[in-house]
C-alpha cells in the first residue's frame, strides 16, 4: 500500500517540519522566551529586508551545493556524510587556483575556480568511493574519517605551505581579479538598492546546478542507471549496469557538488583560505537533502528554508536570550523527524488514508 504522491512529497514533510518546530518551540519556552515572538524575529530577520534576504540566500547557496551532493548520492543509495571534508578540499582547490595567477577579471577566473573546487571535491570523494566499490568498506565510516583527515590537512597547510605572513593561520588574500560581483553590485547596475551582504553570483550558479542535477537524474541514461542502482542493486546488475561504475561516478559528482560550495563561501565571501571554510554546511546538506526528498526543487526550497533559519538564528541571538545554537537544535530535530522518525508520522497517515475509505494505491496506479 502506498500513499498518494502529494501526501508523500508535501504532506508528510510538512508534518515532520511542524513537529520539529513544535519541539523547538518547547525548547525556546523552557529557556524562558516566547516562541511566537522568537519565530517573528527569525522570519523578520531572515526575509524582512534586503539585508536579511542577502544573508539568507548566501547561506542557501552553500546549502544548495551540499544538499545536492547528498541528494545525488542518496539516489544511488549511498550516504555521503563527507560533504564537509569534500567542501574543505574544494576550498583548497578554489584557493590554489585563485592564488596561482594574477587573474585579470572574475569572468576569466570563475570557470577555473569552479573547476578547481569541483576537481578537488571529487578527488576527496574518490577514495571512499573506490573503497566502497572495490573493497566493500562502508562509505559512511570512510567519509566520516575523510572529514577529519581533510580538517587536519587544511590546518597543516595553513601553518606551513599556504600560510600568509602574520599571526593568523590563513592564506594570502586572493587577487582582486577573482572577487565575484555581489548582489549589491548586480542590483545596483539596474538602479535597485540592495543592502551589503555576502550574496554573490554563485547563487545563480547554484540554480544552474539544481537544473543540471535534475537533467542528469531524470533526463540522461546515467541518471537512469544511478536511480535504477539505488532502487535495486540485483536488478541493476541484471540489466547490465556496473555497480563499480555507478558508485564511482555518483560519488565523484557528489564530491564535486560539495566542492563547489567553496566558490560561494571562499571565493565569494572570505576571499582567502581559512582553517574552517565550511562551518557545518556539509552536514546541513544532509538535512536539506532529507527535507527536499532528494529532488533538486525540494533541495532548493529546503536550502532557502535553512538559509533563513541560519540568518534568522543570528538575528534571534542579537535580539533575545536565545543563543545561536538554537539553530543547531532545530536542524537536528528536522533531521530526526524527517529522516529517522519518518515512520512515526507515515504509519498513522497511512492508517488515516485507509480509514477514510480511499484507495491510495489505486490513485498512484492511475497516475502512472
Amino acid at each position, binding site marked *: 500500500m502506498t500513499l498518494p504522491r502529494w501526501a508523500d512529497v508535501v504532506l508528510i514533510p510538512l508534518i515532520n517540519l511542524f513537529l520539529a518546530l513544535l519541539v523547538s518551540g518547547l525548547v525556546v519556552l523552557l529557556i524562558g522566551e516566547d516562541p511566537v515572538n522568537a519565530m517573528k524575529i527569525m522570519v523578520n530577520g531572515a526575509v524582512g529586508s534586503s539585508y536579511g534576504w542577502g544573508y539568507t540566500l548566501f547561506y542557501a547557496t552553500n546549502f544548495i551545493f551540499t544538499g545536492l551532493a547528498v541528494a545525488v548520492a542518496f539516489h544511488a543509495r549511498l550516504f555521503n556524510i563527507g560533504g564537509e571534508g569534500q567542501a574543505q578540499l574544494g576550498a583548497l582547490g578554489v584557493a590554489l587556483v585563485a592564488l596561482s595567477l594574477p587573474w585579470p577579471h572574475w569572468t576569466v577566473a570563475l570557470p577555473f575556480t569552479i573547476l578547481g573546487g569541483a576537481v578537488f571535491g571529487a578527488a576527496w570523494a574518490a577514495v571512499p568511493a573506490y573503497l566502497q566499490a572495490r573493497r566493500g568498506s562502508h562509505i559512511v565510516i570512510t567519509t566520516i574519517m575523510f572529514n577529519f583527515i581533510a580538517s*587536519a590537512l587544511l590546518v597543516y597547510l595553513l601553518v606551513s605551505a599556504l600560510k600568509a605572513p602574520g599571526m593568523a593561520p590563513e592564506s594570502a588574500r586572493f587577487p582582486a581579479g577573482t572577487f565575484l560581483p555581489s548582489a549589491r553590485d548586480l542590483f545596483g547596475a539596474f538602479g535597485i538598492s540592495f543592502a551589503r551582504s555576502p550574496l554573490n553570483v554563485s547563487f545563480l550558479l547554484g540554480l544552474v546546478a539544481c537544473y543540471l542535477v535534475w537533467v542528469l537524474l531524470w533526463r540522461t541514461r546515467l541518471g537512469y542507471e544511478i536511480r535504477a542502482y539505488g532502487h535495486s542493486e540485483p536488478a541493476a546488475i541484471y540489466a547490465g549496469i556496473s555497480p563499480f561504475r555507478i558508485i564511482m561516478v555518483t560519488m565523484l559528482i557528489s564530491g564535486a557538488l560539495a566542492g563547489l560550495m567553496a566558490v560561494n563561501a571562499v571565493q565569494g565571501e572570505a576571499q582567502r583560505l581559512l582553517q574552517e571554510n565550511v562551518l557545518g554546511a556539509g552536514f546541513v546538506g544532509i538535512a536539506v537533502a532529507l527535507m527536499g526528498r532528494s529532488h533538486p526543487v525540494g533541495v532548493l526550497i529546503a536550502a532557502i528554508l535553512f538559509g533563513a533559519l541560519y540568518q534568522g538564528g543570528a538575528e534571534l541571538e542579537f535580539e533575545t536570550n536565545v543563543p545561536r545554537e538554537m539553530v543547531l*537544535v532545530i536542524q537536528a530535530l528536522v533531521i530526526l523527524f524527517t529522516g*529517522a522518525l519518518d515512520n512515526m508520522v507515515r504509519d498513522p497517515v497511512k492508517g488515516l488514508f485507509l480509514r477514510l475509505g480511499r484507495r491510495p494505491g489505486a490513485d498512484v496506479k492511475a497516475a502512472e
Partner: protein
Amino acid sequence: MMDLNTIIQILDSTIRLATPLLLACLAGLFSERAGVFDIGLEAKMLVAAFFSAAVAATTGSVWLGLCAGIAASVVFALIHGLASITFRGDQLISGVALNFLASGMTVLIARDWFNEGGRTPALIDGGRFQPITLPFAEALSGVPVLGPIYHDLISGHSILVYVAFLMVPLTWYVLHRTRFGLRLRAVGENPGAVDTAGISVVRLRYSAVLIAGVLCGIAGAYLATGLAAGFVRDMTAGRGFIALAALIFAKWRPWYAMGACLLFGLLDAIGNRYQSIELLGIAVPGQFMQALPYILTVVILAGFVGKAIPPRAGGAAYVKER
C-alpha cells in the same frame, strides 16, 4: 633519548586519554554487535559530559553528576532506539541528528543555566573524581623500574579509569560466555533466526542500546569530571568518532578494542606532548598524528591489513513477518 620518567608520563597520559575512548568503544560494541549502528556515540558522551559537570557543579557531588550524566546519555540512547528499532528509521541518520542535537542543546542549556557562555563553572574538590592510590603504591615506589611503573602508571587514576578497563573482561564475558551475549550477537547477525526461536529481537536490541547509553554516560562523565574540570562546548572533540574508528580497528572484539583505544590514546598523548616528532630524520607534523587514527581506520577498512567485517544485520531494522 627518552628516560623512564618521560615514558611513564606519556603512558600515564595514554591511559587517561584512552579511558573515554574505551568506554565509548565498548558502548558501540554492544550496540553494533546487536545490529544497531551507532554514530551517535559522540552525542551521548557530550550530553553526559555536560549534565555530569552541571549537576556536579550545582550539588558539589561528583557521584550525583555521574548519575545525571548516565541518565542523559540513556535518554539519547532511547531516542536512538525509538528511531532505529521501533520506527525502523535509518540508524545512521538518527545518529547524525543526535550529534547535532547534543552539540546545540548542551551549549543552549549551559548558557541558560550558568550564564558563562556555554560552559559550566570549574569543578572543585568533591565535584571531581579524585585519583585513587592503590595499596602499597607508596611503599613500593622505591623499587627500581617496577616501583615507579606501579606508583605512577597503574596507581593514581580516578575510579572510572579502573571501571573502564574492568569493563573489557566483563564485556568479553557477557558477550561470549552468557546466554544473553549469545543472543545479542545472534541478533546482530541473523535477527530472523532469533525471532524464530521465540526471543524478542526488539527487547534484545533495546537492551544493547541501553547498555551503550550507560557506557557512553560514564565516558562523558569521566571526560568532564575526571579528565577535565568542567564542561566546555563540544568538549568531546571527535572522540566518539575515534571510538568508532577503534571499534572497526578492533573488528568488533573487546580485547582488541582495548588495544586500539590504547594505541589511539598513545597517539593523542604524544601529539599533546610534542609539537612535531623527528622520525627517521623526517619531521612529522602534529596534525598528521591527529589524523593518524582516521587514516589507520581507513586502511583497515580497505582490507589491506586483514578485513573488517561488521555484524551482518548491522544497520537494518528488523521487520517481523506479518
